[in-house]
């Protein structure tokens, strides 16, 4: 029986047409799948590129876009622009003394506290901090939480503590105005206070004055009682502004 069934089945063969047809079909299927794989790979590549670009743009925005500003004013006027990570994106000098100071100091990419310490504790800065110099830190940020955190951070800086720095906060909108007038944020805020007592004072005048000179003039006007209802240094710029003082008693209000 084995032989009979075997012999009978042995008569059955796949035709050469069937084999050719299947080979052709497999070839077409292979090509179709290769095209599909290539298309999918291209699509994946495009998606990956978009992803990388988006991540890159977000990263760039996070690292390079300033969202907060810290102005350090004694006579040198220097303004630090900070990114979302509170690192320095740029440091700009707003007078010649500031330019000289920044010539030998690089603070880009540093955390703001380290940058402040580096600037304030630098050798060229020390002559400006002697006597009755006023070291003021003025900050502006779009977020109140960020402002509060920056104020707290600045207070804890060695550069602020050691030299009795005063810290203020002001409206972020004042940043552009200050820059248009060629002043740092801190000096512009001081100018706005002084101009309430003396409207003949110009931004050019303030540019060449040290912070202690501006403070002295404000103090003199307040003592003269010319402006009994006068507010604090930063109040003209930011009604809710807070100002804090450390150490050396350069109280401004």
């Amino acid at each position, binding site marked *: 029986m084995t032989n009979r*069934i075997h012999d009978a*089945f042995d008569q059955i063969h796949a035709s050469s047409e069937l084999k050719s047809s299947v080979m052709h079909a497999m070839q077409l299927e292979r090509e179709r*799948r290769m095209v599909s794989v290539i298309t999918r790979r291209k699509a994946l590549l495009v998606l990956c590129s978009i992803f990388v670009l988006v991540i890159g743009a977000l990263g760039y925005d996070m690292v390079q876009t300033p969202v907060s500003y810290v102005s350090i004013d004694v006579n040198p006027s220097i303004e630090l622009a900070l990114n979302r990570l509170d690192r320095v994106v740029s440091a700009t000098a707003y007078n010649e003394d500031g330019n000289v100071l920044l010539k030998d100091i690089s603070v880009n990419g540093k955390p703001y506290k380290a940058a402040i310490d580096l600037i304030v504790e630098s050798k060229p800065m020390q002559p400006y901090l002697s006597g009755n110099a006023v070291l003021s830190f003025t900050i502006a940020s779009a977020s109140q939480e960020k402002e509060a955190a920056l104020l707290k951070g600045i207070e804890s800086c060695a550069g602020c503590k050691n030299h009795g720095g005063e810290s203020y906060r002001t409206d972020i909108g004042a940043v552009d105005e200050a820059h248009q007038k060629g002043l740092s944020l801190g000096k512009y805020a001081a100018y706005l206070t002084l101009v309430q007592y003396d409207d003949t004072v110009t931004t050019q005048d303030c540019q060449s004055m040290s912070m202690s000179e501006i403070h002295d003039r404000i103090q003199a006007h307040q003592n003269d009682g010319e402006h009994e209802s006068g507010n604090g240094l930063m109040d003209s710029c930011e009604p809710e502004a807070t100002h804090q003082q450390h150490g050396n008693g350069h109280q401004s209000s």
Partner: protein
Amino acid sequence: MRSEYEVNNAIEQYADMIQRICLYHLKNSTDTEDVFQNIFLKYMLYDGNFVDKEHEKAWFIRVSINACKDFLKSILRHPAISMELLAEQTIEMDLHHFEILEAVLNLPKKYRDVVYLHYYEGYPATTIAQILMTKENTVYSILCRARGMLKKKLGGDDFDESNP
């Protein structure tokens, strides 16, 4: 994905065997071509490795039987006796062989795979049980009953053989 060379080689090597399996499962040559394509597509996309040629052959048998069953299920056809395909395949076949194939195709569906694998491919019951994923005793029973049915239909003393 397997290369064109590998697939064409497999077609040359296993096409006849698959044709025989299709013969006792399917109705006509159009169905056979569809099933052929499904089987070799599976082979083309199969990433596994075969231990040896026997392993590969057993894989093709299992995939072919399943492909035929799936095809019949998919088109809601009754797995009727494949007389149309038999007629297509046996135009030049002598009456003796035709009668034997007809008798095999008239066996109950579940008997046909066992008869083919044993009498044509020469597999022992153990291997058939592995390929069909059934018990060895079931294979023995099927072979015994199939032998009785074929003897009744075709006659001859050579049906009284011992168990495989």
